[in-house]
């Protein structure tokens, strides 16, 4: 691989990377032409609907579908009996592994329902009205069981048990009876007791967060057509068409080669669309009905049966010397997994202390099943939760030490060469530069008024690489098409086009990026883990580089010179042989005569991208607290982040701003509220309040660029880091404003008011 950054003048030489062109899919998105999941239709299409459990935990005694099947217009009814009973098997799709048995049982309950909203049956009918009527005609008899949603209640020895086969993994000895604790993980180094013994200052705290939803505005949607020849087509909105293909094949017991998945435009995912809910059901219904089936969730279904991320308990104990040097950290994380194992407590544990160089530590994580929707990945899964506890505790430590909170973080900052708490040794990280960026920003010294406070917090995310494929084809007119298999969730098409344009020497407008279906491009892991611009961008760059090498060869053939006598400069072959006085050959002219030089010009690269550079963010938040109502207003927000190199700075800024906004919602408003029977009480955007435009100030992003030498243009993942610091940044600002440490999210007005009254 040619390493552009080996050249010291790399950035100066770039013509496209680092600029802000209009995205190639932009016109479709602002005119309403872009086709999202629910916008696709087929002739003869049926409407699919799901019957859902009204109970948080119950045994399914019987399901009688006879009356529903008899209704005129009903074409198919499926239950768990129509799906194979799968064995336990893990599959890695790009943002954490999934257990296929649990995935299947989450799509369609078998024997037991495990949360309010759990699917028990599905129908396909000729109209929505008939489908709804059919759902009412399906008779399900339940034996209601005691339920448990709170994470610590679920860990109690006498808690209602979700899975009789679940024995805690990760303990010294296998327990003798099942529990709701799916696993315990531990990261440790040094001598914890010795660390606490030499400490001058110790802080200790217990923090909680509520389950929150990714809150993408587009509900899940798909159309599935099961052909009479067994060939299946699926159109759906997801973070990965290959993930949809594999998961559908597993859940239905089909060959994945018999399923072709075409990605629709995706209306937000944030990790929540890294799994399937509808697609296998739609295929099963289509198989039975012999017609295409469209399924679209309502917003209520999205809240009750998809996402969210864990509610959690975080216990943090930190120790430092009087000069601020951290000597010990003990962190305990208890995360709700929802109905099946797989909370993000693993990454939550690994990221918890990733910003700190601390010699003695222990992080213990518990993955706990609860009678709530199975959690799905949510932007930097697990990290914002552990960061809320640790960054609140660091703030408390700074107060106790009388130290500036940025100076305290700087003193203990990880740097290149430091062995990260989660294992590897850091290289090419830009954490100190990121801290300096907020330290030197005027925001940090701006005056504050009464009832106002300022908070600081930092955050870390690994970013991942993984498997990607990209193809670049040159048209006879000298333009390029870039084909990838990664759904464009936030403007990645333009970044792909820019990287190809940079290598080919074309204006970006001459490069058309396409996101292809599973039959039209080689495998790519899903869009997640902040991997697309890094990993798929690497494949695009290498494919373009192969084309440049081919173009040089073709020019050499035309000029009858050796290939190393040809250079590629600004979109044209240049002859370096002084004896040949020939004009440059542009890409367009080489494309026009490609038939004589070896045929069509194109290249495909499939790779496993290694060396994703980890990302760090450092945020400053100012709030004002209304002492009468307890309402918190975010007044000003500044977020610095090391992004390696910003391919398209405007979309990098957008990722930072969007992540911050979600983090503010998590901190202040958002939470799943359950009634006594375990039913979600706020399954709509009126009562589950995501931040609206009038809730937020402008969010100032600071792009810090410490290049990642493992990416051809220096890029690191961007999308996930910015949601990690805000929970604590907001809470630390509230602490500064009211003088009371708030430990339970969300920081809703009643809680703040009570804290003010109690001070």
């Amino acid at each position, binding site marked *: 691989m040619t390493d552009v950054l080996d050249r010291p003048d790399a950035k100066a030489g770039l013509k496209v990377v680092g600029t802000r062109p209009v995205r190639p899919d932009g016109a479709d998105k602002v005119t*309403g032409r872009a086709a999202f999941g629910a916008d696709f239709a087929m002739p003869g299409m049926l409407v699919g609907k799901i019957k859902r459990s009204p109970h948080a935990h119950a045994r399914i005694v019987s399901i009688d579908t006879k009356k529903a099947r008899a209704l005129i217009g009903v074409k198919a009814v499926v239950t768990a009996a129509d799906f194979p009973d799968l064995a336990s098997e893990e599959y890695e799709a790009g943002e954490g592994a999934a257990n296929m048995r649990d995935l299947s049982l989450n799509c369609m309950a078998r024997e037991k329902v495990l949360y309010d909203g759990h699917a028990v049956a599905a129908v396909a009918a000729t109209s929505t009205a008939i489908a709804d009527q059919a759902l009412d005609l399906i008779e399900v008899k339940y034996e209601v069981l005691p339920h448990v949603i709170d994470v610590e209640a679920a860990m109690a020895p006498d808690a209602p048990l979700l899975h009789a086969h679940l024995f805690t993994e990760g303990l010294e000895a296998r327990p003798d009876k099942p529990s709701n604790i799916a696993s315990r993980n531990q990261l440790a180094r040094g001598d914890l007791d010795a660390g606490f013994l030499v400490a001058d200052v110790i802080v200790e705290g217990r923090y909680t967060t509520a389950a929150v939803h990714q809150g993408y505005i587009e509900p899940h949607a798909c159309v599935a057509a099961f052909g009479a020849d067994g060939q299946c087509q699926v159109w759906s909105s997801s973070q990965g068409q290959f993930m949809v293909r594999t998961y559908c094949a597993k859940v239905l017991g089909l060959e994945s080669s018999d399923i072709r998945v075409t990605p629709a435009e995706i209306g937000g*995912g944030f990790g929540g669309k890294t799994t399937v809910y509808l697609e296998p059901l739609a295929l099963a219904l289509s198989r039975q009905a012999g017609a295409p089936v469209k399924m679209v969730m309502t917003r209520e279904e999205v809240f009750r049966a998809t996402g969210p991320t864990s509610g959690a308990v975080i216990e943090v104990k930190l120790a430092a010397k009087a000069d601020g040097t951290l000597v010990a950290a003990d962190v305990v994380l208890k995360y709700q997994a929802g109905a099946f194992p797989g909370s993000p407590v693993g990454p939550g544990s690994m990221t918890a202390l990733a910003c700190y160089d601390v010699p003695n530590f222990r992080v213990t994580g518990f993955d706990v099943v609860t009678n709530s929707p199975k959690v799905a990945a949510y932007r930097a899964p697990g990290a914002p939760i552990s960061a809320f506890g640790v960054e609140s505790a660091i703030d408390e430590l700074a107060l106790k030490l009388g130290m500036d909170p940025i100076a305290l973080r700087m003193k203990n900052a990880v740097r290149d060469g430091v062995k990260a708490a989660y294992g590897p040794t850091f290289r090419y990280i830009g954490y100190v530069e990121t801290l300096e960026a907020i330290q030197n920003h005027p925001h940090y010294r701006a005056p504050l008024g009464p009832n106002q406070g300022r908070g600081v917090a930092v955050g870390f995310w690994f970013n991942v690489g993984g498997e990607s494929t990209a193809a670049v084809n040159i048209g006879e007119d000298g333009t390029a098409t870039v084909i990838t298999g990664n759904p464009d969730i936030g403007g990645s098409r333009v970044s792909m086009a820019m990287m190809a344009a940079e290598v080919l020497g074309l204006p970006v407008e001459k490069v058309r990026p396409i996101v292809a279906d599973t039959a039209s491009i080689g495998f790519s892991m899903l869009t997640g883990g902040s991997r697309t611009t890094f990993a798929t961008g690497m494949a695009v760059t290498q494919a373009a580089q192969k084309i440049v090498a081919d173009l040089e060869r073709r020019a050499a053939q035309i000029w009858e010179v050796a290939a190393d006598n040809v250079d590629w400069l600004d979109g044209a072959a240049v002859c370096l042989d002084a004896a040949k006085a020939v004009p440059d050959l542009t890409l367009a002219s080489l494309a026009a005569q490609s038939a004589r030089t070896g045929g069509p010009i194109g290249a495909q690269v499939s790779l496993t991208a290694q060396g994703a550079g980890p990302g760090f963010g450092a945020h400053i938040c100012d709030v004002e607290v209304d002492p009468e109502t307890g309402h918190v207003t975010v007044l000003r927000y500044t977020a610095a982040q090391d992004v390696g190199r910003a391919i398209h700075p405007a979309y990098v800024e957008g990722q930072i701003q969007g992540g911050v906004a979600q983090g503010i919602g998590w901190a202040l408003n958002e939470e799943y509220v359950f009634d006594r029977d375990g039913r979600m009480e706020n399954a709509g955007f009126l009562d589950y309040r995501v931040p609206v435009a009038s809730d937020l100030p402008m969010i100032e992003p600071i792009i810090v660029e410490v290049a990642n030498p493992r990416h051809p243009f220096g890029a690191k993942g961007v999308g996930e880091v910015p949601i990690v610091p805000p929970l604590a940044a907001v809470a630390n600002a509230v602490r500064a404003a009211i003088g009371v440490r708030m430990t339970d999210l969300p920081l809703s007005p009643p809680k703040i008011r009570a804290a003010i009254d109690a001070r």
Partner: protein
Amino acid sequence: MTRTHVSATVNGDPAEFLSDPGTTLLDALRDELGLTGAKEGCGSGDCGACSVIVDGRLVCACLMLAAEAEGRRIETIEGMADGSTLHPLQRQFLEHAALQCGFCTPGMLVATKALLDANPDPTESETRYWLAGNLCRCTGYDKVIRAVMDAAAELRQVRV
């Protein structure tokens, strides 16, 4: 079930469709007229992704019955551009990168047009409160607000 015949003007052209009593304007636009630019994000008037303008007034198409559209003048995102020339709002959204996934964008643009039709010179605060009914989960609204303010300024220049 008796279906109602509805005649309306959609983006300046006459449009006719049949509607069940419970059909929303949003469903009629999307399913009967094939205008899928307006999106259903919630079906309860909370997200604004289905924003359309009816007789000059901004409404959530999911909260209006299709039968109520009889004789009304409806503007949707599909009618915002002038042929292949984008409206200044659409252009500013693109130039500011004021969209990521783009799902809320049609509703956001229609709502913004309604704002600027009523108030050509809104403050940032007025813009934020006007758009409080249009949820965006991707952008944090920063670039959206900047795009609206710049488009408003551009449109004021055009008016002068």
